[in-house]
Every structure is written in C-alpha cells, then in structure tokens.
C-alpha cells in the first residue's frame, strides 16, 4: 500500500445518526443553514479528510488545545461547528466521531460533549479498531 493512497473515511454510530439527520434537513430545505452545513460536511469528509496531509495536520490535533484529547483531531466548519475525528496513519483510516457546536463555557459545547462521551467509553471500540491510544479517563 503506497503512502500516497487516500485514507478511508468512516464514521461512528453517533456521527452517522447526526449526518443522516443533517442530510434530511438539508434535503427538506435546500437553501437553509443546514443545507450549507451538510455541503461543508460532505466536502470535508469526501474530499479532504481522505488526504493524509490534511487528516493528520498538526493544526487539527486537539492534544495541544485541550487536555486529555491526545490523538484526537478537530476540524472547523465555519466559525462554530467542529468535526471531531480520529486518524491512524497505520490503518490509513479516519473515523469521524461526532460533530458539534462550539460554544465555549456552555455545557453543550462540542468539547464538553466529547469529553463526556470519551469518559463513557462510547468510542472505545473505534480507538481499538484504529489502534490509537485512548485518552486516560
């Protein structure tokens, strides 16, 4: 397998539910904010995260931004939305864990939600699948 081959992009169960909901809203209202957001998600997932240099970009790494988020990446969609994902160069795969709304200081902030879900063990199988070290609980 050559190093220039694109990564596979997969999704968690949570992300799959979110994306189906977002796609349904976008199809219902083609000019809506949700339609724009869905378009951005599609382009990111389909055209960008598959590229190793983007998937593994240091600017997306959360470890230097948030405590205990080592090996986790975050990519912005506009100013307020974030796509959270894991990336494995060994497995040549990206797995999107969730998307969320950046609202610093709020209980529903995307990173607060990520923190809760990491501690619940919701994504443990995905860490194992990618052979990526899970942040300590």
């Amino acid at each position, binding site marked *: 397998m050559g190093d220039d081959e694109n990564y596979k992009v997969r999704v968690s169960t949570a992300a799959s539910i979110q*994306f189906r909901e977002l796609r349904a809203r976008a199809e219902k209202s083609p000019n809506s904010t949700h339609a724009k957001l869905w378009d*951005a998600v599609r382009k990111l997932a389909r055209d960008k995260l598959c590229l190793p240099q983007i998937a593994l970009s240091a600017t997306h790494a959360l470890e230097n931004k948030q405590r205990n988020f080592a090996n986790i990446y975050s990519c912005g969609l506009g100013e*307020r939305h974030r796509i959270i994902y894991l990336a494995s160069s060994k497995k040549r795969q990206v797995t999107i864990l969730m998307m969320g*709304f950046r609202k610093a200081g709020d209980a529903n902030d995307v990173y607060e939600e990520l923190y809760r879900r990491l501690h619940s063990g919701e994504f443990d*199988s*995905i860490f194992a699948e990618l052979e990526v070290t899970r942040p300590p609980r």
Partner: protein
Amino acid sequence: MRSAECVRGSTVCVSLVTMSALIFQGDRQLTEVTVLAVDAQAALEHASNSPTAWEPTVSRLTEQLMRIAGLDWWFEIHDTPEAIEAARRQLLAHRDYVRSALFVAAGSAGDRVEWLLERTGSGLLSALRSQREAAAARLHDLDLALRFLLEEDDPTGEVERAFSVPMPPPQPDAPSAEFDFN
C-alpha cells in the same frame, strides 16, 4: 413598496442564500437609498448611484422582508471572500454616519461578518432589538439568525437547534461504519 415614512427607517441587507443579514439604522443620507439587488456587486453599484432600481423578480422571502418597516438598503451577501470584502469596504466608507449596524450570518460567512461587527463597535446593536422583534413576527428565521449572532440567552435551545444538529443519545460502544457522503 415602501412609504415615505419608511425612508427614515433603518436598512436591512439580507442574503437569501446564506441567511446573512445586514441591518443599518442609517441617517437620512443612507435611507434615501433604496436598493434591492440580487448580488453584492449589483447592490454596491446601485448604492453608489443612489438608485431606486428594483430587480424584476423578487422572491417571496424578499417580499416578506421588505414589509418589515424601514428596509431600504439591501445586500445579498454570498459567503465568498470577494462579496464579504465588498460589503466591508462599503460599510467602512459609511462608518461616519452609520448609526448602528448588525451583521448576521450563518455558515462559513459567519466569521467574516462577526469580524465586521467587532470593528464597527458594540454600541451599534442596541437600536436593533426592536427591529429584530418586529422581524420575528414575519420572518422567524431572521429572528433566529439575529439571536444567534447576538448570543442572547437561549433557554429553550431554539437558536442552537436552528443552526446545529443535535447530538444523539449516547450510543453503545460500537465499531465504525461506512457512510455514503455522495
């Protein structure tokens, strides 16, 4: 479409595509301009000549917005850097007599519009609350957009739901799956 009294009103600029909006509470010099344009470039050209030209086709949403009192300057702002920059230049050119301004955007235009807002002064927002309330009765989405940008209290989560996708309940630990993004 507008009465003479509305000439003394404020100015609203809305992108039908992005739900971006600009609202100006302008002085007479500004409000004498009545423009409806379907793209930013046309709006700027019209505004610079103070025309009263109207596009022949007006969407239903546009008509609704124009019924909100005092809409007399209208930009459709696409979320392209060129369009945002054009709006920025236009605003800065009028900054000495623009009394208040509100910039609302959802999606990728949001950060640029917020950037504009920061540089035009926080005191510009106060006069717009009543404007927003007037708009709410007629255009629910615009009201949501304004509240979104203003980051007002959102006790019911209505604003957040309008601009985001809710997280599902915690899912059982499960492996990843493919997803068709096409």
